């Protein structure tokens, strides 16, 4: 243990090592935070998408991207009937309800979508509702009326009749300044959507949420399924770290133990290990992984298992063997044998610790390559289907042609995180290499 501690103390002299450590610490901190605040089950649930995200805009860019570009794109506004001054006018066997949903709109750009979510509680007879849109300059648009089911979603943006009347898609037409130019501009001011409803039961209620979808959202933006990318970006950290760390530990440690056992026992054990290694080198890792992913399972843990299994008999075995061969003949091993140490003890307690320091830099520099391997598999469409990871986000972006449509944030933010992780571990690894590699230190 002492040489390792000694080496770590020397590490402080390398600024790159400190930067690397800082990055890794930040990542680990965020990972812990993420796992605590968004538990595993909840993350999977969120990433499955669907109803949870109905209040989020589609393909909204991050807020800060818009601010940097000097833009003033609208954020999503949710106007709830619970905050509105609702009017009740009871009559025989029911009541007339008037819900004005008012909101301020102060942007030149238009919202990306307009939806109205209605929930109503009634025993038998459905309420009836009429919608009127009022603009700040006093114009009124009748959006029609309809009977309500218990859960109703009125997609104002997809109302074809309204679109024909306005001559534009509704979420543009309803906000446009009058006097039709080729490039319309939104009219700022106080808008109102008035719901005139008739309920036919005394106990019946109506709740409404008007969602004026923005074009920017949060720190990470959203994807084509309205999911907040922050979930995937955050959860990508623990997944990447766990995958990289487990794969790196799994392969290096087992490889080292097997190489040491081969060297110590020699004979047919060594021969079998060497032949297995040669066979394994002939099998290309990535195609085998792609095969496993396509034919068997894309679960990240199965992949991890295969990566480790294939990584055990890697070219590293030959390297460790070369390093261990002289150690085998060392006098202190002979001394250990003389006092009657068992084979396992000699391998685990005397041989392996001797080359452990050499292993540490390799191990640290291996982590990012496994992190990228996971991302690579996801990019090929072989990512874990349920787990939110950076590679998955990039794969979604790729299949939705994000770059072509100009949704750069969708590719760049997971890529930046990948690069940060890669750089953090690589910087630390290279510094460790200089500390622990005695031949480099001598110069």
């Amino acid at each position, binding site marked *: 243990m002492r040489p390792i501690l000694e080496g770590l103390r020397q590490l402080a002299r390398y600024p*790159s090592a400190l930067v*690397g450590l800082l990055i890794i610490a930040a990542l680990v901190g965020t990972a812990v935070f993420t796992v605590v605040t968004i538990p595993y089950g909840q993350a999977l649930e969120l990433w499955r998408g669907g109803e949870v995200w109905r209040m989020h805009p589609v393909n909204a860019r991050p807020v800060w991207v818009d601010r940097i570009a000097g833009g003033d794109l609208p954020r999503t506004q949710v106007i709830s009937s619970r905050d509105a001054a609702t009017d009740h006018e009871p009559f025989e066997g029911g009541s007339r309800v008037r819900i004005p949903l008012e909101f301020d709109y102060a942007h030149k750009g238009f919202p990306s979508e307009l939806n109205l979510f209605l929930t109503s509680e009634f025993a038998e007879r459905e309420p009836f509702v009429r919608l009127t849109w009022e603009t700040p300059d006093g114009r009124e648009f009748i959006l029609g009326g309809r009977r309500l089911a218990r859960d109703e979603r009125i997609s104002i943006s997809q109302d074809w009749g309204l679109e024909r009347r306005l001559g534009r898609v509704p979420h543009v037409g309803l906000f446009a300044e009058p006097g039709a130019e080729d490039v319309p501009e939104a009219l700022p001011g106080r808008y109102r959507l008035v719901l005139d409803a008739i309920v036919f039961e005394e106990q019946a209620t109506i709740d409404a949420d008007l969602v004026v979808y923005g074009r920017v959202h949060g720190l990470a933006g959203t994807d084509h399924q309205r999911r907040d990318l922050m979930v995937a970006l955050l959860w990508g950290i623990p997944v990447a770290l766990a995958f990289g760390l487990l794969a790196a530990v799994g392969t290096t440690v087992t490889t080292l133990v097997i190489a040491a056992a081969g060297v110590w026992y020699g004979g047919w054990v060594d021969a079998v290990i060497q*032949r297995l290694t*040669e*066979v*394994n*080198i*002939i*099998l*290309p*890792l*990535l*195609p*085998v992984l*792609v*095969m*496993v992913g*396509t*034919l*068997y399972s894309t679960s990240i843990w199965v992949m991890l298992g295969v990566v480790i299994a294939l990584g055990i008999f890697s070219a590293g075995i030959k390297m460790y063997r070369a390093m261990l061969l002289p150690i085998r003949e060392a006098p202190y091993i002979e001394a250990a044998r003389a006092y009657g140490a068992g084979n396992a003890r000699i391998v685990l307690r005397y041989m392996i610790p001797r080359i452990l320091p050499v292993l540490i830099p390799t191990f640290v*520099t291996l982590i*990012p*390559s496994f992190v*990228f391997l996971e*991302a*690579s598999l996801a*990019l*090929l469409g072989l990512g874990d289907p349920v787990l939110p990871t950076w590679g998955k986000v*990039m794969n979604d972006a790729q299949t939705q042609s994000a*770059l*072509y449509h*100009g949704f*750069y944030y969708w*590719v*760049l933010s997971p*890529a930046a995180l*990948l*690069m940060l992780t*890669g*750089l953090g*571990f*690589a*910087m630390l*690894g*290279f510094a460790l290499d200089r500390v622990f590699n005695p*031949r*480099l230190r*001598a*110069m």
Partner: protein
Amino acid sequence: MTGTAAAPARGLLRDIRQLVLFTSKRLIALFLTVLVGVYLTILIANMGGQVDELRLVQIQSTVAEQVRADPAFFDMSLQERNELIERQAQFEVERLRLDQPFIVRSVDYLQQAIRLDLGRAEHMHSDRGAREVYWIIVERLPATLLLFGTANLLVFFTSVFIALGLSRRYGSALDRSVIALAPTSAAPGWFYGIFLILIFAFLIPVLPAGGMVDVPPPEGTLEYAASLLRHMLLPLAAMFISTIFISIYSWRTFFLIHSSEDYVEMARAKGLPSRLIEQRYILRPTLSPIITSFALMLIGLWSGAIILEQVFNWPGLGTLLFQAIGHRDTPVIIGTVVIFAYLLAITVFLLDILYAMLDPRVRVGAGR
């Protein structure tokens, strides 16, 4: 060399005998290795025989479809038609020999694969329409060789050249800045590829985002080459950026270790010119590791090519393998892996011989 002047012929004879013995031993060992590797691939690619179950179901439904759609059988009764379907499916099963146990067939596959009789693809076909796996692979091979050959040669020679220079200026600002850049190689080529596509194909649209030539391909040879070159620039740059710094770093370290050997110090002390020291005292003894890494790099990058070829939509072996796996086209998968295994085995074998020729220390039969 123990042979005295009196018996040089006997020494030579012994060397040759040892060489032959060694060569044949290595050949047999390598052949067995390829055999096991290919057999494992066959097992994996067939899902341990499970692909056959899928294939049986598929044959049933295809045959049934064919018989039902054929007007010649319209006036048959239902029972007659079912019998016909049964019979046709049986023929097909026998043709593909699916009635035999998988273990028997896997051995068949193995010996066919080893003989490079790669068989016919099940779903895929080459651009010219051939169904032979051989032709499908041969058609894609040049694309991969062109791109990865160029990239690897470029990276290899640039990095060795720069590393040699840096090892002489050890500790200089240039040296330290190049070394500081080494961690950028943590990201693979496709990763830089995405950025390059973003910048040079979308933000400043000067280069194509993917593919190998324009569509439709230009007529003239010169135009064709120009188009090819334009399409190659981005993937080449991506691979170059992702490997050049780590490559320089490791070669620099390697040369540094070797240039601190006693005999190099001695040559320096003698006052030999640095160019001579570089060539005769550093490069010459380190030639065999350099060549090893060169050959292994040529082979090794092949397996990393799948993603890069996917990202750049490059019609090479990587894309082929990926498509084949997606189509569950076992013959194509096995064919590509067999080719790869052979390439690697041949490389290893050639390396063994090269070592013996290059490095007098690694003598035939010497050591273990």
